[in-house]
């Protein structure tokens, strides 16, 4: 049963990746692209965790954690670039 649910969840997030990708490529606003990229990162985290459950290992958990951390930082950096030009003024 868990297997089925996992596949369902993965399919959902996999489909989500397509939507994110669409929005990143499409825009139209820079904000849209950043937003979509940020969402893609979060979806990727979910997929990593799902994959960890499927593979029955906790080894990939750190990757998810790191992705969460750096995803945030790069989103802020992208925004700051657009807002201020210099990201660490």
């Amino acid at each position: 049963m868990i297997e089925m649910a996992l596949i369902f969840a993965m399919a959902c997030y996999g489909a989500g990746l397509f939507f994110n990708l669409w929005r990143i490529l499409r825009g139209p606003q820079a904000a849209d692209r950043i937003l979509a990229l940020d969402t893609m990162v979060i979806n990727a985290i979910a997929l990593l965790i799902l994959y960890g459950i499927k593979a029955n290992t906790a080894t990939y958990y750190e990757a998810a954690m790191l992705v969460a951390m750096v995803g945030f930082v790069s989103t802020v950096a992208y925004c700051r670039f657009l807002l201020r030009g210099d990201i660490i003024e």
Partner: protein
Amino acid sequence: MEQFAEILISAFLVIAGIFGLAGSYGLVKLRDTMQRLHAPTKATTLGVGGVLIASMLYFGLIRQSLSFHELLISIFLFLTAPITANFIAKTFLAQNVKPEDIPETDRAYGWAVYEDPPGGTGVEHEDQRGE
């Protein structure tokens, strides 16, 4: 018990999947940038939350190895999601929206994107005065 755990975990996974998909779908479906901003920051957060809880439960109940480091990722996401949304919103506002198009603050100071904070924006650095 095992059965119950499986049902519980599966439920979380399915719910998480639905929310995750909804969030990403909203990104495509909704009309303008500010609306789209609502979708992922909420749906995805709960989606990932569901996944994380499912993972905790899975390792705790099925694998019998109590796991709570998933919580850390949740903390991270909960801490960062509003900031991210805030920045993206400001980016959108700064690039696309004039101050007239949004409500006024009705106070001495206007919105942060358009107006300097009390006391200005810092001082000159020694570098600029030449070496």
